C-alpha cells in the first residue's frame, strides 16, 4: 500500500482498521539467489537495492532477532560526510546523498533533519588542525565552514563560554548538510521497500553454520533449516567475527561496546548536533525533546550490549562541562551496541576469503550514517561479484597491502 495523505484520510474514516502489515513474515524457501545475513539497516538496504537496482527477486534477509534490533536501533542517528580522506568522503557522501532522497524513494518518512553537525575546537592548536581538516574536506568536495568562537556562540549560545570553562571554545567547523534521521524508520522503510519487491525477510532465524564446498559457499544452516544460496552477504556488525569463525576465517576486527544515553525530554533548545573531541562527547536533541548523547568506546572488547560505568561518567562529565545548564537533568535511559572496529576506523566491504561470500562490516562507531551506501555497495557485490568503484579501496586486502584508510584521526570521535 502506498502511504499518502488520501490514504491517511481514508483509513482514519474507517477507524484505522485497514492498514496492512508493512512487510510479510514468510517461511524461508529452500533456496535463494542471494541471502543476506543481518536484518539491520545495512542488510535491509542491500536487499532493497538488489531488488530495485539489480532486478533480483529471489533474495532473503535472515535476522536472528528482530529488524533493526541491533546497532540500527541503538545508535545516536547522526548523518554526516565530513571525512578527511577522499575515499571516505566519497563513500559517506554517497550515503548522505541517498539519505537526502530516501523518504521519497521509500515512500516512508525517515525524518531526515539536516540541522548541521558542529565540531568544536578547544585550543589554538585544535583550530590549526581543524583548518587543515576543513581544507581536506573542501578538496574532497564536501561543503564545510570554519567558524570562530563568536560565530559558534551565535549558533549555540548554551555552550560554556564562561571564564571558568575547563575547555574554552576557540571555534569549530560545521557541515550544514549533516544532521539526524529516525533510525528505526530507516530499517522499516528499507524492509517495507524490499518486501514489496518480493524479498523474503525472515526474523527469528539464527545462522548456525555455512555449507562450503570447494572453497565456495553453497548454503546456510539456520535455526529454521538449511537454505541454499547462490551468494551470501554478511552485514552483522559486532558479530562479524563470530560468523567469520563459522565460515572458517578471521577478520582484522575487534568488537567493543559503544554506549549512548538520553535525558528526560525538554523544550526545544539545541538546534544542531554538537561534537567535542576534547571532552569526548557529542549531543543532539531529538524531536521528542530528549538529549541524545554519547562518547567513545568502552575500554575493552565486549559482546555485552550494555555500557560500563567509567565511560558513562566521562561522557556525562563532558556534557556538563560543555553545557552547564544541563546539570540538573535526569538521565532517562542508557544502553550500548556492539560495534565492529577496524584498526583504521574504516569499513571492510568486498569479497570474503570464501568464494561467493561478501562482507560489509567494520563500520565501527559510525555505521548508521553509511547505511544507504553500505547497502548499495553490498548489492553491487552480490549481483555482479565485483567491486563498485566506491567500495574498491575498502577491500579486506588492505590489511595485507598496508594501504589503510586511517580515519582514526580524521573521524576524531566515536559517533
Amino acid at each position, binding site marked *: 500500500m502506498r502511504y499518502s495523505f488520501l490514504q491517511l484520510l481514508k483509513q482514519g474514516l474507517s477507524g484505522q482498521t485497514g492498514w496492512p502489515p508493512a512487510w510479510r513474515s514468510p517461511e524461508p524457501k529452500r533456496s535463494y539467489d542471494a541471502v543476506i545475513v543481518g536484518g539491520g539497516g545495512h542488510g535491509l538496504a542491500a536487499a532493497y537495492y538488489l531488488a530495485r537496482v539489480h532486478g533480483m527477486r529471489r533474495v532473503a534477509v535472515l535476522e536472528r532477532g528482530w529488524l533493526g534490533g541491533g546497532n540500527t536501533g541503538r545508535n545516536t542517528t547522526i548523518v554526516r560526510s565530513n571525512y578527511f580522506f577522499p575515499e571516505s568522503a566519497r563513500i559517506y557522501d554517497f550515503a548522505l546523498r541517498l539519505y537526502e532522497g530516501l523518504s521519497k524513494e521509500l515512500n516512508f518518512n525517515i525524518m531526515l533533519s539536516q540541522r548541521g553537525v558542529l565540531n568544536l575546537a578547544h585550543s589554538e592548536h585544535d583550530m590549526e588542525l581543524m583548518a587543515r581538516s576543513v581544507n581536506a574536506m573542501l578538496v574532497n568536495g564536501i561543503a564545510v565552514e570554519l567558524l570562530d568562537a563568536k560565530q559558534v556562540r551565535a549558533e549555540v549560545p548554551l555552550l560554556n563560554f564562561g571564564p571558568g570553562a575547563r575547555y574554552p571554545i576557540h571555534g569549530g567547523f560545521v557541515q550544514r548538510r549533516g544532521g539526524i534521521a529516525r533510525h528505526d524508520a530507516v530499517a522499516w522503510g528499507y524492509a517495507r521497500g524490499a518486501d514489496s519487491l518480493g524479498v523474503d525477510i525472515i526474523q527469528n532465524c539464527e545462522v548456525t553454520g555455512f555449507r562450503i564446498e570447494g572453497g565456495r559457499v553453497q548454503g546456510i544452516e539456520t535455526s529454521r533449516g538449511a537454505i541454499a544460496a547462490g551468494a551470501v552477504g554478511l552485514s552483522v556488525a559486532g*558479530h562479524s*567475527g*563470530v560468523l567469520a569463525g563459522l565460515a572458517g576465517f*578471521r*577478520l*582484522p*576486527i*575487534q*568488537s567493543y561496546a559503544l554506549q549512548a544515553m538520553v535525558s528526560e525530554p525538554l523544550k526545544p533548545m539545541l538546534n544542531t548536533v554538537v561534537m567535542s573531541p576534547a571532552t569526548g562527547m557529542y549531543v543532539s536533541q531529538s524531536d521528542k525533546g530528549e538529549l541524545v548523547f554519547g562518547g567513545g568506546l568502552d*575500554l*575493552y*572488547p*565486549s*559482546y*555485552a550490549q550494555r555500557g*560500563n*560505568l*567509567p565511560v558513562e561518567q566521562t561522557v556525562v562529565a563532558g556534557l556538563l562541562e560543555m553545557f552547564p545548564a544541563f546539570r540538573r537533568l535526569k538521565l532517562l535511559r542508557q544502553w550500548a551496541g556492539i560495534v565492529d572496529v577496524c*584498526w583504521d576506523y574504516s569499513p571492510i566491504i568486498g569479497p570474503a576469503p570464501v568464494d561467493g561470500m561478501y562482507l560489509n562490516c567494520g563500520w565501527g562507531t559510525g555505521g548508521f550514517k553509511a547505511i544507504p551506501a553500505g547497502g548499495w555497495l553490498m548489492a553491487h557485490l552480490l549481483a555482479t561479484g565485483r567491486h563498485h568503484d566506491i567500495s574498491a579501496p575498502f577491500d579486506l586486502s588492505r*590489511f*595485507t*597491502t*598496508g594501504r589503510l584508510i586511517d580515519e582514526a584521526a580524521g573521524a576524531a570521535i566515536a559517533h
Partner: protein
Amino acid sequence: MLLIPCPWCGPRSEPEFQFGGEPATRPVPAAEVSDAAWGAYLYVRSNEKGPHRELWCHAGGCGQWFLMERDTVTHAVLRTHKPGAAA
C-alpha cells in the same frame, strides 16, 4: 565496573588498568615473513565471544603487564596471572 586482581597488587578497580589487546607472537625471521603473515600478526585477532585471553597493564598502579582471561559476554574476570607463569 570490573574488580581486577592484579597478580602483584591484588584486587583493584577498573579505572587503574589499561587494556593491552590480545597476546600475539611476532613472526620471525623478518626477512622470510610474507605480507599476509605480517598483516595477520598486526591486525587479525580472534575477537572471541566468550572466554578471551588478553594483556592488561596496571597503568595506574604498579605499572606491570599481566595476562587475564575474561568473558566478553558477561565481563567476568576468570583469572589473571603473571607473564611466563603456566598458562
